[in-house]
């Protein structure tokens, strides 16, 4: 009988207790992983590098106000600007699903500015050739079951067509992957010319400008110079990086996310406390036995190692399994709700490390104090405890 057998037998001496402790740990770390994924997605803090370098210029009063299309050439002329394009919120929904992102854009310009949009060149050519064509981010296409060649109707809550209808139809010419998890991840892109001609009002305006610097000046100066260009004009602007814009938008849902996080930390803490207490109790119940082991010649050190290893064995494998299950659940949800979570639901290294640290804290925190206290006693005192 080697050491491991001893640990294993000890672990299962009260099988019911062990099973329930493991199940509680499974639930807690599953919840922990899922909630971390949600928290990260809701904070929109996970955007990639492209979004940190691109600038977004919107109307200063609020995002709902439109900017003149003529601003494009004025931004393009500013020193330090390498490229500029624009987008507009379309506010469409497919059937009875919730509203998601679609932008009318100038195709070649927009694709050049957003290299994270990976589209095959055949699909790209097809889209450029079709005025009523659109390309779709993969998460949305898979949620709604759209394929290249489909004609899909989108009902806009904002834009009416010349004929008075709110329903716009587009031919899906391409499905793209997005490597940046930014504002293009789950979007429908279609041609601005087609949109501008067909809309009943607001012609000649756009929602926002996207631009990129040529690296000749710091990004802060570039943002200031764009806003200065339109100061005192009828439509003043506010420029920020795309990443900062996304985060500011997420802040608007703000304190709710924070409250949920607080409540749930309290819960995870409490349930871990419960589990920890049970583990500590099972160590205390065994103090007598430690005396027996010592009599048999086990050193304090080896009893210590046996007990600590048993504590880790109880928590870690189940905890890690729970986190894996949590990730699988997140992947499933983001697949089924691609339009809502286009960037997907992920937990990063940080969350995994935090989860592992919690597991270590609960197993060591509950096992160490009683073991250390017990091993300070001599054999006679140990054996005397019932």
């Amino acid at each position, binding site marked *: 009988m080697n050491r491991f057998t001893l640990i294993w037998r000890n672990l299962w001496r*009260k099988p*019911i*207790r062990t099973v*329930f*402790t493991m*199940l*509680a740990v499974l*639930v*807690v770390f*599953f*919840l922990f992983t899922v*909630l971390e994924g*949600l928290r990260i997605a809701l904070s929109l803090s996970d955007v990639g590098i492209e979004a940190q370098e691109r600038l977004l210029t919107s*109307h*200063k*009063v*609020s*995002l*709902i*106000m439109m900017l003149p299309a003529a601003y494009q050439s004025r931004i393009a002329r500013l020193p330090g600007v390498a490229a500029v394009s624009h987008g507009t919120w379309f*506010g469409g929904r497919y059937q009875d699903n*919730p509203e998601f992102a679609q932008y009318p854009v100038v195709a070649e310009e927009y694709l050049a500015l957003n290299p994270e949009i990976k589209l095959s060149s055949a699909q790209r050519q097809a889209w450029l050739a079709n005025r009523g064509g659109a390309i779709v981010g993969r998460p949305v296409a898979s949620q709604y079951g759209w394929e290249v060649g489909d004609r899909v109707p989108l*009902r806009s*809550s*904002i834009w*009416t067509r010349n004929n*008075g209808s*709110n329903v716009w139809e587009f031919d899906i010419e391409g499905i793209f992957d997005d490597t940046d998890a930014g504002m293009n991840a789950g979007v429908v892109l279609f041609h601005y010319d087609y949109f501008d001609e067909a809309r009943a*009002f607001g012609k000649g305006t756009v929602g926002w400008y996207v631009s990129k610097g040529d690296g000749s000046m710091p990004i802060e100066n570039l943002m200031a110079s764009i806003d200065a260009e339109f100061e*005192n004009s*009828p439509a*003043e602007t*506010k420029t920020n990086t795309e990443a900062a814009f996304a985060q*500011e938008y997420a*802040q*608007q*849902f*703000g*304190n*709710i996310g924070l*409250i*949920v996080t607080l*409540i*749930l930390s*309290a*819960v995870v803490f*409490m*349930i871990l*406390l*419960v*589990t920890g*207490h*049970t583990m500590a*109790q099972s160590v205390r*119940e065994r103090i*007598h036995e430690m005396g027996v082991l010592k009599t048999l010649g086990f050193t304090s050190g080896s009893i210590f190692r046996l007990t600590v290893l048993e504590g880790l064995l109880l928590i870690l494998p189940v905890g890690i399994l729970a986190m894996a299950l949590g990730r699988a659940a997140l992947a499933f949800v983001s697949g089924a709700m691609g339009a809502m979570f286009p960037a997907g639901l992920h937990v990063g290294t940080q969350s995994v490390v935090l989860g592992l640290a919690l597991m270590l804290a609960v197993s060591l925190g509950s096992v160490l104090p009683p073991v250390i206290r017990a091993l300070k006693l001599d054999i006679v005192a140990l054996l005397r405890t*019932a």
Partner: protein
Amino acid sequence: MFGWLTQTAALAALNLRSLPRRPGAAAVAMSGIAALTGVFAGVLSMASGFEKTMEGSGQEDVALVLRSGSTAELNSRFSSEQADVIRYAPGIVRDAAGEPRVSSELFWIVNAVGKSSGTEANVALRGIQPAGYALRKGYRLAEGREFTPGRFELIAGRGARNQFAGLEPGQMIRFGKTEWLVTGVFEAGGSVFESELWCDVNVLQSAYQLGSGFQVVRAQVDGAAGRARLEEALDGDQRLAVDVWSEEQFYSEQAEDTTALIRVIGIPISVLMAIGAIFATLNAMYASIAARARELATLRALGFGSLPAALATLLESVALALLGGVLGCAIAWLALNGFQASTLASSFSQVVFNFAVTPDLLAQGVTAALVVGLVGGVFPAVRAAMAPVTVALREL
């Protein structure tokens, strides 16, 4: 024949009286259940608070006219001529002077800085006409004075004033190129309007070059019959393409998206937590029985039956769950009831609301706790009843 009943009572009393002497196990079972009910009540109080604010906003006898197909005021638009056609349509209540009780309004969004977040948020700036005040139930000026028509002045809803910076009466606040004087603070019965800023609609049109049009017409109607007459008249008018809403229905539909999201996230989490709490309770109860195995065996050797032993154990578990449930609810109520928060609603503007830990939620929370206590106690109870007396007595 009542033997087992008295036995159960005696054992249960013994169990409960000895609880303070084993505080660890009791506290552990209770705190797990308290966490469960606390979160359950806490998360759902957010949904119920938001719902209460939204649903308290609409009135049955107020009709909302929006451009056909618009599901939010923000997306609606019509010309001043169209607004005039609606104003004098049948079905609308008129005042003593014969003027229709109508307010043609603009619903605009401006950026204000949130006090707690420090970042910009979308706040609704609503342009109203004089009849607009009376169309809101419970409207009351709480501080300062109302805005003067024709001036760049506004009044702030109480919720907006609390959540966003720079909205104290007497302060100037700049939205884009225009600077506004905050003249007062109003209340509107805790409704969504308290999240808004109100100004003169004509001033708003000129401030942001919005033309002479409007986005929404609010009209007092003579109940559902009056609304139906209004709807019929507007449907038949070639100059218009509009939808007529009952204000009550409009706001309850607006509430749905947000509350559905909170519930879709909150309920599965609560269920998972309940499962976690059941395991924790099971463990605590098994431990409590294991610790008292000899005591229980002794009692049974003295003549107490298996059924009373089982029932007493179950009662202990339920009593602990009840205590935990009440504790969790009390914490949720003390910490969260009335807590003010704001979120971006489907109107694309911030809605300020108070968490509402309602009696309903408290009852549901305690019920959930009892279920956990029952499920978590039943197996240990069986164990307590089945353990062979001789073995248990011999155990150390």
